């Protein structure tokens, strides 16, 4: 472990610069994006048969594009949303950030329906990482074997150890800041922890009073200037897109380097189908809409990275003669086992001013309740992190308690006195929590996704336990009143990976069992979700898949 610290602190600047080339490709001046990169971007024609067409430029899609471009592949990444310029497109304002979210029509159903939109998915280059909070914990080793260990969920077709080098590499590429991590597989982080704001301070105080270990981090926010990325200014608008470039999003961590190595990112291109040869043996490219016209991009390989709702929807919408139930859906798995974490939030009232809106909303975490505890009446567990709702979100929080009118205004005027904690509860994968095609159609004439979600008894028990722990922590910190609301966070699953075609849509290398040159490289491949925020794990899985793909084809890009 000491060797690892030494390597982190004494490692050569050049190695860091090579690995994190994107951070040096951002402008050195006050601008946040180099439009020259876009002007110089390589552009392919639809008729060119490129090595790979990637659908979606979020966490998974951008990492894949960067890796493959580096290895000399011809890459076209088709992204439904725009190419963001943080200077002119993003604002330091909660109400003005609506355009960052995926707000195409969707239907939600089931006994516990999950609101989507701003709570779950982004669009544009960077995908959901543009407005994600930047928490970057690893999954625990136990997450890969919950079926064997706890009799619930599913075993992954790969082991934690196989992913560890990729976790480490992505942590350095974002880079992640935090204290030494004692949970799961204990490990250090490349950047020192950030100072905490009032909300994090309250959390640390309450946890200490109860003897619950808590740590600062891990967040994908540079501590100190990093390349041409400035230091965080602690303004608290991470969920509105970081105008500073301090918080990682693939727009600044992987896209610039991908462009510099010849990848094309074609924006405002909505992919409507993956095409195959007449026998359905090979993917041959994608059909997409751009400027109101239909195009076809030919490709030797296709990777779908549209996230847990749009990826299954696209495969289902790509049904053909060979796959009448949807592409790669021979075993009725596409769209099934979609998961969200139970994310109740508890706010506590303090006599002092907390001013939770300052500092990044993600600050402090405890993973003390992450693993199955035989003494508790449920399997698996939860993590607790602090979240810091800005006024609109906090008003929704108070309104969800039933307050309105004068009552609501009174609570809101007390805003600066409240601290909020959020739990991430591992809810179990269930076959009927799924994405199907609704009768309703969108602007493009395509059937929209219907996402049905219902909790099971174990889910309810975990959420209840998390709520108790959060209320205890806040009371121990001195809260005079606590309020808890039910919510969900994060989406994964829908095209789970498995050991064989009966248990998964894709294998551990993210290749679909049904069509060998069709990959799924996003959050939809996760078989279980743990109690960790998913982006780091999504990126590590895609990094590993890219590495395996490249080595199979003989072009190299090795783990440092």
């Amino acid at each position, binding site marked *: 472990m000491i060797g690892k610290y030494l390597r982190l602190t004494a490692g050569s600047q050049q190695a860091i610069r090579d690995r994190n080339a994107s951070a040096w490709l951002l402008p050195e001046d006050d601008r946040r994006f180099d439009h020259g990169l876009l002007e110089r971007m390589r552009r392919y024609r639809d008729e060119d048969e490129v090595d790979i067409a990637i659908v979606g430029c979020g966490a998974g899609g951008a990492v894949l594009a960067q890796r493959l471009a580096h290895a000399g592949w011809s890459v076209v990444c088709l992204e439904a949303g725009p190419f963001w310029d943080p200077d002119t497109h993003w604002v*330091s304002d909660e109400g003005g950030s609506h355009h960052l979210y*995926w707000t195409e029509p969707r239907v939600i159903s089931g006994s516990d329906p999950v609101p989507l939109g701003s709570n779950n998915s982004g669009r544009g280059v960077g995908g959901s990482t543009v407005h994600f909070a930047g928490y970057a914990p690893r999954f625990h080793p136990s997450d890969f074997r919950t079926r064997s260990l706890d009799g619930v969920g599913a075993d992954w077709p790969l082991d934690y150890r196989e992913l560890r080098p990729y976790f480490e590499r992505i942590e350095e590429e974002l880079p992640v800041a935090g204290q030494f991590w004692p949970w799961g597989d204990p490990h250090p982080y490349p950047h020192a922890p950030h100072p905490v704001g009032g909300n994090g301070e309250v959390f640390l105080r309450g946890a200490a009073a109860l003897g619950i270990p808590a740590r600062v981090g891990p967040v994908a926010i540079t501590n100190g200037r990093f390349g041409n990325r400035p230091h965080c*200014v602690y303004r608290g608008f991470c969920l509105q897109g970081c105008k500073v470039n301090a918080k990682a999003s693939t727009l600044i961590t992987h896209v610039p380097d991908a462009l510099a190595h010849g990848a094309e990112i074609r924006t405002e291109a909505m992919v409507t189908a993956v095409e195959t040869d007449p026998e359905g043996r090979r993917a041959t490219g994608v059909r997409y809409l751009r400027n109101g016209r239909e195009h076809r991009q030919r490709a030797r390989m296709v990777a779908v990275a549209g996230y847990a709702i749009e990826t299954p929807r696209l495969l289902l919408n790509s049904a053909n003669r060979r796959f009448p139930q949807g592409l790669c859906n021979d075993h009725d798995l596409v769209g099934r086992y979609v998961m969200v974490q139970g994310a109740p939030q508890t706010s506590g009232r303090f006599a002092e001013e907390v001013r939770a809106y300052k500092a990044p909303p993600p600050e402090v975490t405890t993973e003390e309740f992450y693993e199955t505890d035989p003494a508790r009446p449920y399997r698996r567990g939860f993590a607790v992190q602090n979240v810091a709702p800005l006024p609109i979100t906090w008003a929704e929080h108070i309104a969800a308690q039933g307050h309105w009118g004068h009552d609501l205004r009174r609570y809101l005027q007390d805003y600066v006195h409240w601290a909020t904690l959020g739990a991430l509860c591992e809810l179990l994968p269930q076959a009927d929590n799924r994405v199907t095609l609704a009768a309703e159609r969108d602007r493009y004439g395509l059937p929209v996704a219907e996402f049905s979600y219902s909790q099971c008894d174990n889910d309810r028990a975990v959420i209840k336990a998390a709520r108790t722990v959060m209320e205890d922590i806040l009371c121990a910190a001195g809260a005079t009143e606590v309020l808890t609301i039910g919510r969900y966070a994060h989406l994964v699953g829908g095209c789970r990976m498995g050991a064989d075609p009966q248990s998964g849509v894709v294998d551990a290398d993210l290749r679909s069992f049904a069509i060998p040159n069709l990959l799924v490289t996003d959050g939809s491949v996760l078989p279980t979700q743990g109690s960790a925020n998913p982006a780091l794990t999504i990126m590590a899985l895609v990094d590993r898949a890219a590495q395996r793909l490249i080595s199979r084809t003989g072009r190299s890009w090795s783990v440092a």
Partner: protein
Amino acid sequence: MARTVPSGDSGHRFPDFDALDQARAWDPVTSAVVFDRLALQPDLRFFGPAEEAVASALFDLLLAQEGPPEQPRVPVLQMVDSRLAEGQTDGWHYQDMPEDGEAWRRSLHALDQDARERHGTCFAELTADRQRALVQRVQDLSGERWHDLPADRVWSLWTRYACTAFYAHPWAWNEIGFPGPAYPRGYLRLGVGVRERWEHPDRAPEAP
């Protein structure tokens, strides 16, 4: 330009605080978005006159903007109307609810219908107490159906849109002590009980 919230029982906790005092420290793109909310709002495009009458009274109740009519208000009605006219919704809708625009129209008509059935006149004509009782009834029906819509989802639709509009407005920030935009300057003084020079202390701390 008004400096404190012009309506409701407010303004006593951060009496001299005005987020706009710091506007010169904001980036121009953010400033433009915030100042737009202080400008004259576009004419209504989505709500028809009958809907306008109900919605306007409903928003005043939900957000306790109950001052005399000549007092300025946070233009919640206009802000929600713009969102609906521009289709700026969150996209999703519950399977047992129509999409947001349609849900707004139907729920406003339903409220008017309740007023006529119980009091023989339209919602906007009722006293505030009677209006409040009708609105409260919808909240109390949670879990049941109201005019063929799930009452709790209607309630959530109303409060979500109302809160999103109201708390996007600098007048609302002033009464809660929130400084609004913070780019490029950001914050240096972090932690419990610590303030920047331009953050004002709570003058009348009082648990709600």
